[in-house]
């Protein structure tokens, strides 16, 4: 596999995770933004999407249900909650999008 193919594979895997994360954020924003408006490096809290502490709880729950990630076991959770790409880093470091939702 050459470098461009490797990169394409990395990008595809990240996009898969980002798509699922975007769906969560769209839900938290009550549809005020479309998925394509959610830039992956924009801030989730404060400025940016303007999420609040209740939304943070929802994201933590989502990480567990969607990706099997337990927030209490993540030492850098606060840093990971800063942007969609940061969340995707965390998910990808723990096996990516392979986790299937429990039935």
């Amino acid at each position, binding site marked *: 596999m050459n*470098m461009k193919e490797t990169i394409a594979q990395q990008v595809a895997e990240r996009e898969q995770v980002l798509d699922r994360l975007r769906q969560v954020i769209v839900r938290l924003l009550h549809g005020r933004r479309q998925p394509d408006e959610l*830039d992956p*490096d924009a801030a989730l809290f404060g400025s*940016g999407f303007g999420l609040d502490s209740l939304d943070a709880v929802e994201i933590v729950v989502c990480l567990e249900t969607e990706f099997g990630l337990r927030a209490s076991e993540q030492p850098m959770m606060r840093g990971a909650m800063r942007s969609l790409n*940061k969340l995707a*880093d965390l998910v990808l470091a723990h096996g990516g999008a392979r986790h299937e939702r429990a039935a």
Partner: protein
Amino acid sequence: MNVPREVAAIRSSVALSRGSHVSAVRVAGPGAFEAVDSISPRELYIQDGQALHTLFLDDGGHAVADVYVCADGEDFLLLGEAREQSLLDYVRDRARQRGGTEIEDLAASHEVLSLHGPYAWELLAEVLTPEIIGLPYLGFFREGQLTCLRAGKTGEYGYDLLVARDEADAFVERIVERGAAFDLATATLEALDTCALESWFFNVRREGGADVTPVELQLQWRVSYERTYPGVSALLERRAAPTKRRIVLVAAGAPLAERDRVLCEGDAIGELLAATRSPTLENWLGIALLDASLAYPGIEGFTVARGSSAIPLRSLSAPPINNRSLYVDPQRHSYLTRDRDLFPPLGPLS
């Protein structure tokens, strides 16, 4: 000027900036809302004492000013940085005005100061009022002739202070006097710009000058596609077309420069819109405008061409800094006890 030392103060204690890069304009009178609403790319869903962070755009959808719109009773206070045209001229030229709308430049009567750092709140609580501790992000209040907005583009606690010119020197003196206990530093614009890039804040004076819109700049949260304002038609066109380019954060171990060409296996895939040495991360950081299919973090295969050699680049998720202000809690922490408090490291790059 010692930028690394200034940046270190912003990242670990407090720094004061007394620059002229921020303009202040007041829009008052019965038509104030209509005037600001006509140029704001975001809905003015703000109450008295709240601010909204947005951009003012030209007809091509390019950002010409990075603005905090503050709702002050029936009036609006605009605090912002602009490129080329001044904030005042933009408002005068582009805002819808009906009889009785007053647009006032506050430059003659006021100066804009700012405090940045994980303990900026503590110093300001001593100098101004303890109530500063409860001031939410993008909240502001007035105390006499002084207006204090909690904002900032360094990733740390930040406060923009609009102070009457005849009171500014005395106010700065008080900050400096009390600031000694906080190892207060003075921050130049270069240090603030370095911190902005380290914390992935848009800089209208730098990357704002490129032929890019909020779509490429990952700033869509600062605009709405369902309003009428200057530049919206161009933005809608860009959004409707497949995104060709997008910015991504990159890092390198060797010097980077604005306009450096970025390559992937020898093919040109974009260029750097901005670059700086990060004293905090001890690395070079850049904002790369890349082919959108490659503008993703976690990629190690890019290079920057430098003469006959190639500098390896890697792309990263933003922001790259684990800001101390994320962990400093005004209810529990103090600059005095900082050495006893345990905080995660600011870096290194992951």
